[in-house]
């Protein structure tokens, strides 16, 4: 058994955002392609929490959707527990699908408003044929509700009767019902109040300890990431610019973009120090800058950076894609 639960190699996802065929023909325009994810490679170890951070439009959610199969990869491969997901037969995929799940960002959209909570949680059970007997699936739903801090009686209610935090708990109960090993969390707390965020994050950590879960945690909130992650990958414009241990990254960020992000984190320790603002905006991914895509915002950039794409260099400290990194 390999140490890595998930291995992603040279993953790219390209969106075709061209105008319709007839418009292109008449207006003599070419196809327009958007590379949302660009040659991303990463490994996630069994039992760890790997965080992906980046600004809006950096491709975080696209990676999540490609991993769980909601979007097809344009190129590259995804190996889950050693098997290439693209090569599996439909019957084999049925078994593999049970083993990964996803927690969505918006708990107000992720639960079907017409379904009772009990049915929402039991849906994966029914799909994967777990707990076929009437009673056993009912019992499992009650257990799950109590596991996430709700009451078994809540099963007969509808999602609109719950608050955002409670809904996210229901979403977590649904995710856990099929006993997955790997859970993709796509900004699971960004739609919640700060006070509720901590409860949900702590619940997720407890569940991780109890069930030995592996998380891919996607967020733009670095303080949340610091709380949750063992390792962090920083995305910029669809490329992974730095991967390293959580502690190492916060102590010693090596990529200038990571440094800029960390500068912008609100932090009590920093009182009195002048903060360097995150300068500029993420460029348009349809026409990305040449060379290192970060060079228009980078304080260290020179002519070499503008012309060449920096390769990802691995070292003991982690991986970084920057010519200037030390």
């Amino acid at each position: 058994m390999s140490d890595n639960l998930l291995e992603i190699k040279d993953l790219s996802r390209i969106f075709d955002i061209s105008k319709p065929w007839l418009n292109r023909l008449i207006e003599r325009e070419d196809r327009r392609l958007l590379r949302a994810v660009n040659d991303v490679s990463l490994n996630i170890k069994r039992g760890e929490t790997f965080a992906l951070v980046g600004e809006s439009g950096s491709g975080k959610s696209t990676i999540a959707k490609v991993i769980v199969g909601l979007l097809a990869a344009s190129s590259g491969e995804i190996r889950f527990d050693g098997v290439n997901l693209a090569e599996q037969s439909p019957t084999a995929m049925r078994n593999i699908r049970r083993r990964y799940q996803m927690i969505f960002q918006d708990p107000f959209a992720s639960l079907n408003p017409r379904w009772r909570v009990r049915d929402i949680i039991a849906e994966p059970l029914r799909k994967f044929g777990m707990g076929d007997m009437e009673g056993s699936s009912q019992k499992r739903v009650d257990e799950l509700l109590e596991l996430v801090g709700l009451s078994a009686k809540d099963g007969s209610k509808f999602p609109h009767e719950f608050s955002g935090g409670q809904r996210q708990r229901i979403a977590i109960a649904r995710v856990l019902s099929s006993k997955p090993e790997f859970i993709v969390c796509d900004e699971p707390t960004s739609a919640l109040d700060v006070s509720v965020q901590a409860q949900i994050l702590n619940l997720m950590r407890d569940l991780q300890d109890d069930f030995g879960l592996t998380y891919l945690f996607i967020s733009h909130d670095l303080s949340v990431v610091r709380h949750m992650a063992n390792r962090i990958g920083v995305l910029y414009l669809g490329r992974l610019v730095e991967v390293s241990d959580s502690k190492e990254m916060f102590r010693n960020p090596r990529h200038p973009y990571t440094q800029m992000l960390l500068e912008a984190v609100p932090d009590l320790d920093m009182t009195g120090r002048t903060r360097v603002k995150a300068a500029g905006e993420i460029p348009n991914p349809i026409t990305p800058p040449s060379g290192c895509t970060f060079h228009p915002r980078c304080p260290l950039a020179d002519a070499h950076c503008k012309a060449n794409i920096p390769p990802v260099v691995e070292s003991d400290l982690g991986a970084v894609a920057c010519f200037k990194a030390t």
Partner: protein
Amino acid sequence: MSTDYQTNEAKSLLRRVLDSDIWYSFKKSKVTMVAAGVALIIFLAALLAPLLAPHNPFDLASLSLMDSLLPPSWTGMGDPRYLLGTDDQGRDVLSTILYGSRISIAVGLASVAFAAVLGITLGLVAGYMGGAVDAVIMRVADVQLSFPAILIALLIDGTISGLTGGVNREETAFTVLVISIGLSFWVQYARTVRSSTLVERDKEYVQAARLIGLHPFLIMLRHVLPNVMGPVLVIATINLALAIITEATLSFLGVGMPSTQPSLGTMIRIGNDFLFSGEWWITLFPGALLAVLVLAVNLLGDWLRDALNPKLR
């Protein structure tokens, strides 16, 4: 444990209806309550026609041409047995209206159900699948929408009658009417359902269902369908009035129900021939009932549209 849940649900269903915004807005609107009352009376009268009607207009043995074209009884020239007079065959107008509204309402309900099932299915598939399937279905819908519904219904009715050679007209008239009216009304359902489906399709609960590998057909049926049914209910109510009118129009034009099984439209057509010779009652009473029925159903539809529209609350 599970029975405990069920009693809870049964209780909460009644409570939910009584506590709901819809029930509240129903109680607030006098017009709607009157319309609902009128519609209910007409529906019940139509349903119970065999019990309520003083005569059976389909029993040919009971008809006598001696009794034909009698005016309503209160005019003094009529016969007390025939309250609203008789038609040219000697059929009691009141009984024929009761049986006729039965046919009209049955055609209306059946064609609305047919149009709704067809339209919802095609709209769901078009919205959820997208791409070429969507394009083909919606272009057909667009083309059909550029013709008046009555013209489509006439065309389909004519085609089916032509294919069957007009034989067994009396037995097939009902089915042919339902198919032709249904086929001319499906577009509205399909367009509405498609646009709601486009919104629901990208919501995260649908993604969660896709993620566990649920078949697209099941996702449409279990997840998307219950969430796009609200507007359909409104369209169906308003279309019921339209379908009844369309049936009456087709019957008036002579391509609908035959005169042996008269619907309200057929009766109006028959009476129309006698209108200028002074026998006004044959056409007036079915015409008035048709107008009242359509008005009541339309008012209900308008109210439902407003009650379900969150922007007007």
